[in-house]
């Protein structure tokens, strides 16, 4: 959603709208995580009155979808791809191969035996 997006470009990797959107979602998630965890605590705590827990459930379900972790997807920071990402390197499989073969990734070498 555009209301969460930074007014100025604030990522320094490969830029396309999907990467920007994912970055926005990550920031929104980080901002609202304590609130979500507090609500989840209220919901799970059986010692609290049922009314409070129901209200917390309602409030949690009415939060914006961008505050949810499941909205976040790892994307390639050099090509913007959304599938086949090595999360350790944050790269798609082809970008990983290209960069590894050219020696840009420290400690990565082609297997040979």
């Amino acid at each position, binding site marked *: 959603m555009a209301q969460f997006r930074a007014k100025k470009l604030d*990522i*320094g990797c490969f830029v396309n709208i999907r990467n920007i959107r994912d970055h926005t979602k990550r920031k929104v998630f980080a901002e609202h*995580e304590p609130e979500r*965890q507090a609500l989840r*605590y209220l919901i*799970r705590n059986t010692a609290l009155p049922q009314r409070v827990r129901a209200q917390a459930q309602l409030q949690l379900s009415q939060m914006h979808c961008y505050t949810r972790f499941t909205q976040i997807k790892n994307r390639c920071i050099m090509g913007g791809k959304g599938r086949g990402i090595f999360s350790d390197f944050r790269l798609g499989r082809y970008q990983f191969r290209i960069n590894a073969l050219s020696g840009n990734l420290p400690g990565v070498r082609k297997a040979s035996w």
Partner: protein
Amino acid sequence: MSIPRSRVLDLMKVQCRIFNTTFNPTQQRLGTKILNQRLRGPAVASYYPPRVGTIQDLRKLYPQYDVPDDEEDEWLEHMQIAKSRGKGPPKKKRTAAESKKFNKRK
């Protein structure tokens, strides 16, 4: 030789105090699991590298120096030429009445 329940509870209480956990002998669901989870927001939000080293950053860091920006100069020159030919951008509308898109007569 069996140990009385109250003695075990006392031990549990002390254990909870020392290790800073919740004393919950009746095993109620108190949601402490969620309070113990660490926040992963900062790690998640720093996935994409930040944009650094732009000319605007340099200008902000060193206001006493004049940092040239070729792209900006080119753009300004282009805008000047366009304006002199009457092809510049339209004036910014300040009021709602001005900005009405369809208030023209047809």
